């Protein structure tokens, strides 16, 4: 009987094949893992009108005055992160909801009037509103939520929404002067929504 020598590649293949039997499941979507809390942080504000509309208004405000408003792009995400952390430390601040509601009115009025504001004022405003909106989002976390994933998720989506709205507003209004009027009209709509919602506050209804 003659034996044929086994090639090195065949031997290597024979060794690797059993290893494949031990392979685990591949998760195409990381929502099945702990990384899902990052997506929770992104989706929570993204699916809530009470956050999306004022964030859009911040973008419109930056787009109307890009030079003065660019500080808002920096301070708003920082505020969101601080607010989310604050929600973990002091979860009982009920007045923050009223500030978020007020942000409709304040931001809507600023956009509608297109009044030029100092960069420091705009930066401080974005920081303060970032904290209040971040706080409300942070309250959505529970004991099982990983805050180190949830917070970056909320901050990322906040930054992206404001950045995209600002970039689109600045680009369009630079090209067509009529677009600036459309943006201001959108500001008056946001202001109107805020005033209407002010009426639903419990302080008027006992």
């Amino acid at each position, binding site marked *: 009987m003659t034996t044929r020598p086994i090639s090195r590649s065949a031997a290597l293949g024979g060794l690797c094949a059993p290893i494949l039997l031990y392979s685990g499941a591949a998760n195409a979507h990381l929502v099945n893992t702990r990384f899902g809390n990052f997506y929770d942080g992104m989706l929570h504000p993204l699916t809530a*009108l*009470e956050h999306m*509309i004022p964030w859009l208004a911040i973008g419109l405000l930056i787009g109307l005055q890009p030079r003065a408003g660019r500080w808002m792009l920096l301070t708003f995400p920082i505020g969101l992160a601080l607010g989310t952390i604050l929600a973990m430390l002091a979860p009982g601040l009920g007045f923050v909801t009223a500030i978020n509601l007020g942000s409709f009115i304040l931001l809507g009025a600023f956009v*509608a009037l297109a009044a030029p504001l100092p960069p420091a004022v705009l930066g401080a405003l974005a920081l303060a509103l970032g904290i209040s909106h971040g706080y409300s989002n942070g309250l959505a976390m529970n004991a099982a939520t990983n805050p180190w994933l949830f917070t970056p998720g909320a901050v990322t989506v906040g930054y992206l929404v404001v950045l995209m709205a600002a970039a689109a507003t600045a680009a369009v209004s630079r090209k067509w002067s009529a677009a600036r*009027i459309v943006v*201001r*009209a959108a*500001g*008056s*709509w946001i*202001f*109107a*929504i*805020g*005033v*209407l*919602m*002010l*009426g*639903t506050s419990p302080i*008027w*209804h006992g």
Partner: protein
Amino acid sequence: MLIKPQSSLAAATAAALTLLAAGPAFAHTETGVAGGFTSGFLHPIFGLDHLVAMVAVGLWGAQLGRPAIYVLPIAFPAVMAFGGFLGVVGVPLPLVEVGVAASAIILGLSVAFVMKPSLTVAGLIVAAFAIFHGHAHGMELPDAANPLAYGVGFVLATGLLHLTGILIGLLVAFPAGARAVRACGAVIAAIGFYFLAASAGLVA
């Protein structure tokens, strides 16, 4: 026992008639955000008295030209919201239906006769009527499936109706278009008179 052909025909006819009484089946029950948005968005559109007045604001703005063409549609939602606020809070406003009908009459006639007051006067007229429209919408808001979504839908629909009026009003650049816009104003005023008569109980 044999069934007579006449009786089976009668049974089939009765069954067919019963099917006519079937109500529509709704796959979507319009709850939550979608329901609130839908009801808010459709409220100004399905209310003909609101619809014509909103379009008239845009038409008049277009006739008046700059800056009224954008000042009126920007000012209207802001002032309307105060009327809406009064409605949401429950502060009664007398003669709301008369005020809404009168807005269609005054704004329609302003368009029909190409009235060109100063921007301040035009703004005050529009603002005064905006309070009535806002109050009428605001009364519905607390009962909405989602009040915020209702507010978004209602403000968006109002703004789009203004935009519709402005786009139609741009026809004033042409002689025939200007006449068509004035005719639109006359029709709006006529509709306003109808609603005024209806609020007084003179017509059904």
